[in-house]
């Protein structure tokens, strides 16, 4: 049996599935707490095989505490590998499309091939969860990972679900064809470098949306800008399509492309360029991830910088980074109070037909008023969430 014939792993919360030929459907299960869990695992395997219309195969599963959707995904991947003509499972997912301008303070990355790191990914309050099929997934696991992400999306409610696909020139089209079955709110395109990249992606998404009966245009796009070319073309990238709701910066690849060191100075131009490009097209801008997970002070300092530069949010590589990021990007009580003062002064002014207004002798001009309105809107949208 060569490696490609086995799907999944024997890591915690995963399972390993091997398919061999047989004259009927045979299921063999190895599991901890076997007496308790075998029956449930068998049901999942048999239902998955039935949905895929596979009637003759021996399915061998070694379970390490996988959830049902993980088992279903691993079995689907293994059966489709063994029987390449099998059609993919099309889960029934109804999802309300996301608003372009909802708060996106945090983007939590999660590797699309690692069930252990996906357990509970919905519970940490991230505004967006990015299920990654690109950098964190080695080529040999790409197929299984996109099926796992499809099943996750069909099972787990995420406030906003994004999938980072591979570039369309490599595995990106296969990624789209698989995961759009589960109707993610949006697709992240890594290494976006031109409006043409976005057009190509939007065209492909439109085609699949039509095919699957998804409301056309409901799938958003998040270009990730992480090359020199991408930074310079960020204006056209942000303006390329109405699906583009948010643009993200990727500093690691960018500094590699530049041959620069990662310092706040070396990133300043790219950050400012991206924010300006985004705002010019009413697109949100999200800053790069902070790679040192142990350094909360460093994370907070960099997040404050991003906030000051005009970013709307920041990437997170572990749930632990979400709370500090949210603290920086959520309006404080003082900011909300200040904004309320400005807005109500403006309303009074309007009522009296006064154009220019002042609070405590300080002139309030239009941009200040707009910012105050944005602060109140964000505060309104964030109300009702757990503290911290």
């Amino acid at each position, binding site marked *: 049996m060569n490696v490609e014939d086995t799907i999944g792993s024997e890591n915690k919360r995963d399972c390993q599935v091997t398919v061999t030929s047989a004259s009927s459907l045979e299921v063999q299960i190895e599991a901890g*707490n076997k007496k*308790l*869990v075998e029956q*449930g*695992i068998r049901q999942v395997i048999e239902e998955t095989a039935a949905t895929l219309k596979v009637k003759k195969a021996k399915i061998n599963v070694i379970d390490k*505490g996988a*959830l049902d959707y993980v088992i279903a995904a691993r079995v689907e991947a293994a059966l489709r590998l063994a029987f390449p003509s099998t059609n993919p499972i099309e889960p029934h997912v109804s999802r309300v499309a996301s608003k372009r301008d909802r708060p996106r303070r945090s983007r939590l990355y999660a590797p699309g091939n690692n069930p252990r790191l996906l357990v509970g990914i919905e*519970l940490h309050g991230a505004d967006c969860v990015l299920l990654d099929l690109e950098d964190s997934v080695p080529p040999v696991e790409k197929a299984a990972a996109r099926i796992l992400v499809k099943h996750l999306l069909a099972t787990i409610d995420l406030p906003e679900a994004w999938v980072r696909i591979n570039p369309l020139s490599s595995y990106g089209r296969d990624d789209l064809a698989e995961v759009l079955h589960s109707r993610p709110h949006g697709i992240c395109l890594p290494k976006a470098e031109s409006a043409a990249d976005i057009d190509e992606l939007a065209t492909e998404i439109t085609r699949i949306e039509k095919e699957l009966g998804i409301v056309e245009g409901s799938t958003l796009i998040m270009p990730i800008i992480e090359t020199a070319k991408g930074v310079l073309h960020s204006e056209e990238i942000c303006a390329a399509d109405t699906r583009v709701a948010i643009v993200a910066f990727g500093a690691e690849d960018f500094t590699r492309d530049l041959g620069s060191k990662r310092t706040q100075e070396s990133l300043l131009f790219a950050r400012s360029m991206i924010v300006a490009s985004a705002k010019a097209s009413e697109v949100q801008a999200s800053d790069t991830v902070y790679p040192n997970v142990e350094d909360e002070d460093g994370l907070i300092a960099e997040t404050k910088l991003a906030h000051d530069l005009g970013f709307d949010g920041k990437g997170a590589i572990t749930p632990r980074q979400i709370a500090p990021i949210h603290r920086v990007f959520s309006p404080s009580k003082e900011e909300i109070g200040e904004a309320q003062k400005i807005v109500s002064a403006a309303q009074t002014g309007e009522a009296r037909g006064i154009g220019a207004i002042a609070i405590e002798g300080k002139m309030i001009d239009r941009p200040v008023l707009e910012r105050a309105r944005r602060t109140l809107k964000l505060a309104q949208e964030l109300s009702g969430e757990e*503290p911290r």
Partner: protein
Amino acid sequence: MKNALGREIPERIGERKLRPFKGAFATTPTAQKASRPQKTVKPGENKVLSSIEEAIEATGLSDGMTISFHHSFRNGDLLVNQALDACARMGLKDLRLFPTALFPVHKPLIEHIKNGVVTRIEGSMNGPVGAFVSQGGKLREPAVLRSHGGRWRAVEAGDVKIDVAFIAAPQADPYGNANGIKGKTPCGPITFCTVDAMYAEKTVVVTNDLVPYPAYPFEIQQGWTDYIVVVNEIGDPESIASGTLMITRSPTRLKIARLASEAVRASGYLVDGFNFQGGAGGISLAATKFVGEEMAKLGIVGGFAMGGGTRLLVDILHQGLVRVILDGQAFDTAAIESLREDQNHVIMDPGQYANYDSRGCSTYMLDAAFLGATEVDLDFNVNVNTHSDGQLLHGIGGHQDVASGAKMTVITIPTLRGRLPVIVDSVTTVTTPGEVIDVIVTERGIAVNPRRENLKERFLAAGLPVRELKEIKKEADRLTRPPRKPIFGDEVIALIEWRDGTVIDTVRRVVGWE
């Protein structure tokens, strides 16, 4: 007969008539305490013997008798195996073993059960011995599991008469004073068995470090000790932690700990003089850490923290966040060192902190406590004793004693362990009744016992994610098919005593699967 929780309890086991559980504080004792024979040791008499065999000989230990041990070395204990090997060599049969707890290291006991050396066990069985006994038909009578306080009470009440208490002592003197915090291999307090030393017919201190008189502190007193035996090894102190002491790194478990600490903050109890129990499991440990950080931030100085002692609690003491740590056991070397050197780190015994039939328990002074569970149910009952497959898994520890006492008992649990749900319709075994559980914290929200409406209001006011337990359960149940359930037969494998000596549940033999 059925007890107050509707669990079926046998009328009697052998000669013992069982009393059904009536409620957490429903019984009142009326009898006199048990006693032991008077004895005088005159000046110049020698109490030191050269081997365990010699001690067995001298104490008159014989077939059918009861021997006891403490578990302060946890999975590093070497005395139980040595003593039982000696009993076997000397041809003893039908012994009743009365340990405070057994661990995986005591696997050789299985052979002694098979050979008839040990035919009854009253004490916690963590690991292979529990799995073996769970098969049924292994012991002459059901095992009896008691909490720390419940065991103390049982000895004082005369429910269990100990014939010979063997006490592993990291340091002892030739007169029989002994302690657990000094010597070559300190294990922390050995006060779990103080009651054994006081009430056993014969008390034997076994040490690997005999020092000139006096060995102190006097956790075990010369006046209780009949004999002292010196051996090469009594335990491996490296194993006392048994892997429980890493603060969790799992984001899900950290979220539970964070929510638990926020619940404490919102409860209204977190004010100057706040007394709490710090846990030793991954989640409880993290919750304790977060509460300490919260106290530092708010400038609150607590009263006492209750152990098992850990480095974390010692740090909290050193930061001046509590005035004192009260400890019945130590889980790491930092705690043992602190017990030796810091007079605000105080040794206590289960009689002091947990005994129902006493004139007061330290646990009743607790404001908040973090405890774990293998299962909880929709009535807030908690199981720590059995696995969902019906196998004996863990002892009660101080679970019942702490939960009964603390003003706010917080159970911290993930909703799933692997594929297995932790919130169930009805727990496999009731260890601690829902009436003393106030809050259950999971990664999917906080459930408040309907008896504690006031806490619920405070949590809601603080914006905490309060949810119905059954809603949390429903959400977790969506992720896995339900596990199969064992079918239990009539044979009783173990009795679970409530801390007042009534029977709260039984563990029965698994005879099949639904």
